[in-house]
C-alpha cells in the first residue's frame, strides 16, 4: 500500500499502560439542517478525554458544522435545526437546562482565523475570567501568565502585555487566542483549522503546543493537512458529505483504512 508516508506515528495508546479514559463527547444519531440543506447526517461518534481527535474530509463535508455544533456556536446561524443528541459528559447539550454559556465555558474554541479582541494582550486573556465574575487581581495576573506560558507565547509578549493584541503577528495572535481559551481551564478544546492561516514555523509551534496540552485537555481538531492529522492525533474521523465514513485510531486510518473512500481521500486520489 502507498500509505507508508504516514507511518510516522506509532500506536502510542497501546504502548502506554492502559488508562481508564472517560468519554467526554458522545454523539448519537445527530442530524443538522441549515434550512433545507442536510449538513450532518446521522453522526455517531464517541470521544475520549485527554485524546486528540482529528476531523478530516473534503471541503464542505460538514467538519466545521460538526465542531461548531459541539459548543453550539452553530446556534448563531439562523434557521438551524438539529435532531438526535450530543452528550457532553453525560448531559445532552441540546437540553433546555444546559445553558450554552456553561457549555462554552467548559469547552473552549479556537477559530480558523485568529480573532483577538481589540484590547490589550493582558485584557484578551483576562476577559474570560472577568465575565465569569473572577475579580481577584492576583489570581487574574497569575492565570494570565500561566495561560500565556501554556500557549508558548509568554516570552514573546511578557514585556508588552499592555500593548494592543493587534500588534502581534498572525501566528502570535493565534497562540494568544489559544491562551485566551486556556485561561478558563476548559475540559475540551475545539480547534477549527487553527493553523491554516499560519506559516510553517508558527504551525509547528501550535502543533507542539497541542501535544503538550493533551496531557490535560481533550482536543478536537479540524484539519486539511493530512500530515498534521497523522502527526498529532490519536483518533481520526473521516467526514464525507455530512456523514462519518470512518472513525478509528489515527494509525489505522492512515495505514489500514477499512473504507476505500478513506483511502482514496488520504492518498489524494479523491476529487
Amino acid at each position: 500500500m502507498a500509505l507508508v508516508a504516514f507511518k510516522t506515528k506509532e500506536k502510542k495508546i497501546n504502548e502506554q499502560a492502559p488508562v481508564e479514559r472517560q468519554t467526554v463527547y458522545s454523539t448519537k444519531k445527530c442530524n443538522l439542517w441549515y434550512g433545507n440543506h442536510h449538513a450532518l447526517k446521522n453522526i455517531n461518534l464517541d470521544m475520549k478525554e485527554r485524546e486528540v481527535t482529528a476531523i478530516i474530509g473534503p471541503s464542505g463535508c460538514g467538519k466545521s458544522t460538526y465542531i461548531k455544533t459541539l459548543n453550539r456556536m452553530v446556534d448563531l446561524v439562523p434557521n438551524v435545526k438539529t435532531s438526535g443528541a450530543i452528550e457532553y459528559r453525560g448531559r445532552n447539550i441540546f437540553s433546555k437546562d444546559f445553558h450554552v454559556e456553561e457549555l462554552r465555558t467548559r469547552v473552549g474554541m479556537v477559530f480558523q482565523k485568529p480573532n483577538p479582541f481589540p484590547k490589550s494582550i493582558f485584557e484578551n486573556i483576562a476577559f474570560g475570567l472577568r465575565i465569569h465574575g473572577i475579580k481577584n487581581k492576583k489570581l487574574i495576573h497569575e492565570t494570565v501568565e500561566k495561560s500565556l506560558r501554556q500557549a508558548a507565547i509568554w516570552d514573546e509578549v511578557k514585556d508588552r502585555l499592555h500593548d494592543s493584541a493587534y500588534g502581534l503577528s498572525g501566528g502570535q495572535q493565534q497562540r494568544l487566542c489559544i491562551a485566551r481559551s486556556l485561561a478558563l481551564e476548559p475540559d475540551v478544546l475545539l480547534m477549527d483549522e487553527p493553523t491554516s492561516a499560519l506559516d510553517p514555523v508558527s504551525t509547528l509551534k501550535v502543533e507542539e503546543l497541542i501535544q503538550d496540552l493533551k496531557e490535560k485537555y481533550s482536543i478536537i481538531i479540524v484539519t486539511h493537512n493530512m500530515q498534521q492529522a497523522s502527526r498529532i492525533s490519536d483518533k481520526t474521523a473521516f467526514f464525507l458529505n455530512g456523514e462519518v465514513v470512518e472513525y478509528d485510531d489515527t494509525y489505522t486510518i492512515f495505514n489500514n483504512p477499512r473504507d476505500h473512500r478513506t483511502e482514496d481521500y488520504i492518498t489524494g486520489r479523491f476529487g
Partner: protein
Amino acid sequence: MKTNDGQNQVQSLLEKKYQNGFLSRGEKVIPVLLFLMAAVSVVTTIGIVLTLIVETFTFFKQISIAEFLTKKDWYPFSKTDASYGVLPLLVGTLKITLIASITAVPIGLAVAIYLSEYASERVRKLMKPILEVLAGVPTIVYGFFALTFVTPLLRAIFPSLEMFNAVSPGIVVGMMIIPMIVSLSEDALSSVPDSVRQGALALGATKWEMTWRVAFPAALSGIMASIVLAISRAIGETMIVSIAGGSTPTASLDLTTSLQTMTSYIVQVSTGDAGFGTTIYYSIYAVGFTLFLFTLAMNMLAQRISRRFREEY
C-alpha cells in the same frame, strides 16, 4: 481573412489615437474643473468666517471684550443702560444642550445597540427608514411639537413649569438629535467584525456581556464621535428653542423659566428691526462668532476622539 481584417481595423484605430497624443483633452480638464468646485466651497467658507471676524471686530470697537465676557446681563434693547454680557446666552445654550444630551445619549445608544446586536433583520429594515424620516423633519415642526404638545404635557405633570422653559425645548432638541446618534453609532457597532463577537461568545459570555464588554468598547471611537457631533448640532439648534424656549436672556440655572440661547438671540435680532450699523446689529456677529468657536471646538474634539480611540480590526 475576416478576423484578420477586424484586427487590422482595431490596430489602425489605436494608431490614430497614439498619434493624437493618446489622452483626450477632457482628461486634463476634469481635475481642473473639480479643483474649481472645491475652491468655490473653500472660498465661500473663508468668506463667511472673514465677514464674521470683521463684523465682530466692529462690535468690539463699541463694546469692550471684557464687558462682553464678564458682565452678567444681556440687555441690548435697553435704551438707558444697555448691557452686553454674553453669559446669559451661554447659560441658555448650555441648559438646552445639557437637557438634550441627557435625553438623547442614553436613548440613542440603547436604540443603536438594539438595532445592531438584538433586532432581527426585519425590524432593522423597518426602523432605519423611520429614523431617517425623523432626521428629515424640519426643525420648525419640532418647535411647534415642543410648544403645543410637550410643554402642555409637562405642565400637566409639573404645574410650576412656565409656558416658555428650558425643559420642553431641551427634550425636543434631544429627540431631534437621537437619529444622528443612532445612525452613526449603529454604523460603528456594525463595523465590529462578527469574528470578534464569536470569540467572546465562545468563552461563555452572554449576549449582553459580549455586547457591553467587547462590541461596545470596540466601537467606542465611532460612538463618541457620534455623540459629540450630535451635541454640536444641539448647540447650534435655533428654531425649537426660539419657539418653545422664550426670549429672556438669564444667567439663572432655573430650568422652569423662559430663557434665550445664542442662536435664538440671533434670530430675534435678525427678524426684528435693529437698524444696520447699530450696536445691536453688530452684536449678532459677536454672538455668532462665539457660537462658531463652540461648534468648531466640538467638531475638533470629535475628530480627536475618533483618531485617539481608533481600533483597527
